[in-house]
């Protein structure tokens, strides 16, 4: 018998691969997998040549919405999304942040209008060298992408 871990094959759905191990449960949280009724396979601390130790999520019969991929792009920008149909990878989707992110991020500034009034948050995505920063459209504060609070 093969000693290798065999993760159940997926017929239709989405695979999120190359998630840094310490980000796996954050991904579970933001995609609300704890209450998701679809078949889900989670794996963590798998060996990865690229990042040392990685996590993996397989979700049957679910496509990710744009605001969900935006959230993933903030938490684990180097993860890979594979769309599976009939056991085949039909699409590999890189995670790219749009120029503006609406709604998914909460402004860390406690005196920002968005934390006091029913205002949809809007952040400009700023790329400086290889660092990504978000700038609140309203209070104009900047925050590092890895430090954002996701709604």
């Amino acid at each position: 018998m093969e000693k290798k871990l065999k993760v159940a094959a997926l017929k239709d759905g989405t695979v999120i691969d190359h998630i840094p191990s310490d980000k796996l449960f954050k991904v579970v949280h933001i995609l609300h997998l704890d209450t998701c009724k679809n078949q889900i396979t989670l794996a963590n601390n798998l060996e990865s040549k690229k990042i040392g130790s990685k996590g993996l999520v397989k979700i049957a019969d679910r496509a990710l919405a744009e605001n969900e991929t935006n959230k993933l792009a903030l938490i684990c920008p180097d993860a890979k999304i594979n769309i599976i149909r009939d056991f085949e990878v039909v699409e590999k989707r890189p995670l790219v942040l749009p120029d503006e992110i609406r709604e998914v991020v909460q402004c860390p500034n406690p005196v920002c209008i968005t934390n006091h009034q029913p205002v949809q948050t809007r952040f400009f995505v700023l790329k400086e060298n290889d660092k990504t920063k978000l700038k609140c459209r309203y209070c104009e504060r900047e925050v590092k992408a890895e430090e954002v609070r996701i709604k």
Partner: protein
Amino acid sequence: MSNNSLVSISDYSKEEILSILDSAADFEANPNRKSLDGKVIATLFFEPSTRTRLSFETAVIRLGGSIIGFSDAATSSSSKGETLNDTIHMVSSYADAIVMRHPLEGAARYAAEVSPVPVINAGDGANQHPSQTLLDLYSILKTQGTLENLTICLVGDLKYGRTVHSLIMAMSHFNPTFKFIAPEELKMPDEYKVFCKNHNIPFTESTELTDNFNDADILYMTRVQKERFQDLMEYERVKNVYTLKNEMLENSKANLKILHPLPRVTEIDPDVDSNDKAYYFQQAQNGLYVRQAIVSKVLANMPII
């Protein structure tokens, strides 16, 4: 949303800034006109600021316009829990433009988004206060004859002082050199130093006031507030070190002018007031002409509905 709103100084291009300053000079020559005859301007002050409110209201009244509004949130419907969105919609059905001050940051940007009439930001928390920046620029232009190639010394609370941050943004069009003088706790945030580097603006930093401004054209003083300090001993020390006194100005340039957004506490000794280089009271008065120019601009070329 109305595109004519003024929320942040960065909403204006260099040309727009210069045209406001031009127009302010016209208003200074002739401040009493009837150009806003029949117009209603709302001044919504969700937090009190008598100085700014009176300046805006006088600007409107001297142009023949009328004022409606409130001077603190306790007397407004927001104290009954009305959303800002609803207040703005209600007021915009009466007024041709809204001047707004609000304690929350970003309130003016949001108001400008939902308002069918132009919104002028008269201060949103620690964020923006563009009419203050424009009156600072007007004062610099008026006293130096130019905005180009000046050495500007910023002193005091450079960490939380929004006026100095906006001044850096606005002056970036005019090839300035900056000197930042602040106590350790209140140093210029990295964000603005990065901004200067990206715009090739030379700057120096120092923690001591004495003698650092002998080559400056403008000495821009700001208020050092007690509540910014965790260590009150440190506040007492700083308060004494950061007081500008007449004798410190002996070797300064002949064209030097001292600005301060007012009100001051202890950072400028009253003995400086009689020095020709003191300009802060005239600076405050310039606010009237600049605000006349701003109100006139936001109401100009309004689409006819």
